[in-house]
C-alpha cells in the first residue's frame, strides 16, 4: 500500500511541476479546440499535433499528447450533444440522448453531465491504474512469448467480435492488417519482404502513416463526397448544471459506466468505443422506463460518457504494463515514445519511474483541466462549431501532410499516406471496418516475433500455447468471446449497437 502511495506521490510531484501542468493544459486545450471541429477524430488530431511535441522533454511530450487525446475525445462529445455530430466513434452513442436533451433545451445539462461523468471515471481509473500496476508488472514478468501471443490473439478476436457490421468482413480486415504489418525486413533473418526494393520500406510502414491515411485523409474524402452535411440543427445552450433529480438519475449510470469502460478498455482492441456502446445497451436494459432512451434520458449520456473516458484511460494499461498498444491511439503514443527514444516495455515503471508515474498522474490532471476548460469555455467551442467545413478541410489536409513529413523527414511516407487514404475510402465504402485492420497491423509484427520465439522454446511443438496456464486461460477467453457471437441474444444486441 505504502508503495502505491509513494509512487502516486512521485507521479503527482512530477505532473504538478509548473511546466508539466502547462503542457497538460495546453494539450487539453488544443486537443479540445481541434476535437470540436467537425470531421476530425482524436487520431487525426494527435498525428496533426505530433510535431508540436518534438522539441519537448519526453515526459512533457507524452503528457501533452495524453492531454490532446482527452481533449479531442471531449471535443467529440461536445459536438455530439450540440449538433449530433460525433467527433469519433466512441461518441456516437452520446448523440442519441445528448442531442435529444439539447433539443429539449437541456444542452447545458447534457454537457455538464458528460464533463462530470468523464471526470469521475477518469479519477477512478487513474487510482485503479496506480493500484493495479505493481501487480500488473509482476504479472508481466510471468509473460513469455506464448502468453504475449495468446493475449494479442485475444485482442484480434475481440476486435472482430465487437467490430461494426459483418464479422466476416472484420476478419478480412484483420488479415489485410496482418499482411501490411509483414511489409519490411524480417526481424530474424533480415530478409526483405514486400518492400518493392524501396529502402524506405525496410523498417516497415509507420503506424502514424497507416492511421493518418485510413482515418485522417480518408475521412476528408468521405466528408467531401457525403452530399450536404446531415447534421442536426444547432441547438442553444442552457444553464450548465444539473438538478438534484438529474444527479440522482446520473450517478448510478456513471458508476456502472466507469466499471464497464475500465474493464473493456484493458482488452487490446477494446478501447473507448466498446465501453460506450455496452454501457448504453445496459442502461437501457435495466431502466424502468426504457422508452425514455433516445428521447433525452440523462442516464444515456452519463453512462456512455463515463465508460468512454474510463476505457480511453484504462487502454493505457496494456501499453504501460506489457508494452502492447491496444488500439491506434495507444500506438500513436508508443510511436511518440519511440521518437523520444523510449521503448514501451514492461520495465517502464522501474526504468523510468518519473515518466511512468508522471504520465499516470497527469491523466488525472488532464481530466481535471477538461472540466476547468470545457465548462467555462463552452461558448467559444460553440462558436468554433460554426466554422464551415469548406474552410477547415484545406487546413486539416495541410496539417496532416506536415505532421507525417516531420515524423521521419520522409517525403516518401507522405506519398504512402495518399495510398492509405485511397484504401481507407474504398474499404469504408465497401463497409469494411477499419479499426480491426489497424489493430492487426500494430499487433502483427509483435505476434510473429513471439510466435517464432515460442516455437523455438517448445522445439516446434504448438502445444506450448495450451500447456502454459496463462496462455491457456487467454485462449479459453478467445473461445468464449467467439462463442458470444453464436448466442442469439448477443447477436441481436451487437447488431443493435454496432450496425451503424
Amino acid at each position, binding site marked *: 500500500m505504502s508503495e502505491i502511495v509513494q509512487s502516486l506521490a512521485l507521479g503527482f510531484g512530477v505532473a504538478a511541476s509548473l511546466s508539466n501542468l502547462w503542457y497538460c493544459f495546453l494539450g487539453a486545450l488544443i486537443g479540445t479546440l481541434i476535437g470540436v471541429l467537425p470531421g476530425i477524430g482524436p487520431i487525426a488530431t494527435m498525428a496533426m499535433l505530433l510535431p508540436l511535441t518534438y522539441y519537448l522533454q519526453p515526459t512533457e511530450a507524452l503528457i501533452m499528447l495524453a492531454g490532446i487525446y482527452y481533449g479531442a475525445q471531449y471535443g467529440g462529445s461536445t459536438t455530439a450533444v450540440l449538433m449530433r455530430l460525433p467527433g469519433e466513434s466512441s461518441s456516437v452513442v452520446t448523440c442519441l440522448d445528448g442531442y435529444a436533451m439539447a433539443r429539449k433545451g437541456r444542452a447545458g445539462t447534457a454537457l455538464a453531465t458528460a464533463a462530470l461523468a468523464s471526470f469521475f471515471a477518469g479519477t477512478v481509473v487513474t487510482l485503479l491504474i496506480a493500484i493495479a500496476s505493481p501487480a500488473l508488472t509482476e504479472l508481466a514478468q510471468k509473460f513469455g512469448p506464448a502468453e504475449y501471443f495468446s493475449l494479442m490473439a485475444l485482442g484480434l478476436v475481440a476486435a472482430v467480435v465487437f467490430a461494426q457490421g459483418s464479422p466476416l468482413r472484420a476478419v478480412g480486415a484483420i488479415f489485410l492488417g496482418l499482411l501490411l504489418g509483414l511489409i519490411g525486413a524480417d526481424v*530474424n533473418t533480415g530478409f526483405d519482404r514486400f518492400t518493392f526494393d524501396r529502402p524506405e520500406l525496410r523498417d516497415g510502414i509507420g503506424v502514424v502513416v497507416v492511421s493518418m491515411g485510413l482515418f485522417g485523409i480518408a475521412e476528408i474524402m468521405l466528408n467531401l463526397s457525403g452530399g450536404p452535411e446531415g447534421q442536426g440543427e444547432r441547438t442553444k445552450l442552457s444553464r450548465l448544471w444539473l438538478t438534484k433529480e438529474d444527479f440522482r438519475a446520473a450517478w448510478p449510470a456513471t458508476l456502472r459506466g466507469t466499471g464497464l469502460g475500465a474493464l473493456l478498455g484493458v482488452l487490446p482492441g477494446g478501447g473507448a468505443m466498446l465501453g460506450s456502446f455496452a454501457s448504453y445497451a445496459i442502461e437501457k436494459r435495466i431502466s424502468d422506463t426504457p422508452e425514455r432512451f433516445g428521447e433525452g434520458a440523462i442516464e444515456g449520456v452519463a453512462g456512455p460518457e463515463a465508460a468512454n473516458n474510463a476505457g480511453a484511460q484504462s487502454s493505457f494499461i496494456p501499453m504501460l504494463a506489457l508494452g502492447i498498444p491496444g488500439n491506434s491511439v495507444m500506438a500513436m503514443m508508443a510511436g511518440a515514445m519511440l521518437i523520444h527514444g523510449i521503448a514501451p516495455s514492461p520495465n517502464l515503471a522501474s526504468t523510468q519511474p518519473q515518466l511512468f508515474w508522471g504520465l499516470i498522474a497527469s491523466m488525472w490532471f488532464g481530466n481535471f483541466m477538461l472540466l476547468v476548460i470545457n465548462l467555462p469555455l463552452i461558448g467559444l467551442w460553440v462558436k468554433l462549431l460554426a466554422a464551415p467545413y469548406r474552410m477547415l478541410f484545406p487546413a486539416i489536409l495541410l496539417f496532416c501532410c506536415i505532421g507525417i513529413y516531420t515524423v521521419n523527414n520522409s517525403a516518401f511516407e507522405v506519398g504512402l499516406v495518399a495510398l492509405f487514404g485511397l484504401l481507407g475510402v474504398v474499404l469504408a465504402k465497401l463497409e469494411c471496418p477499419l479499426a480491426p485492420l489497424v489493430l492487426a497491423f500494430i499487433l502483427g509484427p509483435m505476434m510473429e516475433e513471439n510466435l517464432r520465439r515460442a516455437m523455438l522454446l517448445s522445439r516446434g511443438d504448438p502445444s506450448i500455447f495450451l500447456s502454459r496456464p496463462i496462455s491457456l486461460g487467454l485462449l479459453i477467453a478467445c473461445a468464449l468471446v467467439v462463442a458470444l457471437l453464436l448466442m442469439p441474444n448477443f447477436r441481436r444486441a451487437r447488431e443493435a449497437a454496432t450496425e451503424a
Partner: protein
Amino acid sequence: MSPLNDSDVRAAAAPPETAQASGANDILLGLLFAAIGAAALFIGRDYVFGSSLRMGPGFLPRIVAGGLVLLGIVLMIRGMFARGWAPPAMVWRPIVLISLAVIVFSATIDRLGLFVASLLTVSIGACAGQEVRWKELPFVALGLAAFCTILFGYLLKISMPVWPR
C-alpha cells in the same frame, strides 16, 4: 468521425428492420481481398517457408495471404447469394483531388520547401470541395502557407526545408 445523417443515428439506436442485403459490397470487397492476397502470394513465391520449429521469412506471409484469398472467395460466394445489388456510389472528385494534393506535397517538399509545397497542396486540395469559391481560394492558400511556414519553420524550428533550394 464523419457527419452522421439521420438514418445512421437511427440505425445505431434501434435494430435495423431487415438485415441490409448488400451483395455488391461483399463481392467487391471479396475481390479486393482475393486480389491483394493473390498478389502477395505471387510476390512472396520465393520466400523461404521453413518449418514450425524454424519459421522462415515466408511462413506467416504465406499463411496470411492464403487466408486473405480464402476469405475473399467466401465473401464473393456470400455476396452472390445475397439479395439486392447496389454497388456503393463513389464520388471521384474529392478522392482524386485530395490524393493528388497529398502526392504533390510529397513530391515538392524536399526540393521546393514548406512554403511552396503548402501553397500547392492547399490550392489543389481546396478544389475538392463541393463548392469552390475562387475568390477565397488564393487567400486561404496564402494564409495557410504563411501560417504553417512561420509556425513550423520559425517558431517550433522543426528541421525541414522551408524555402526552395
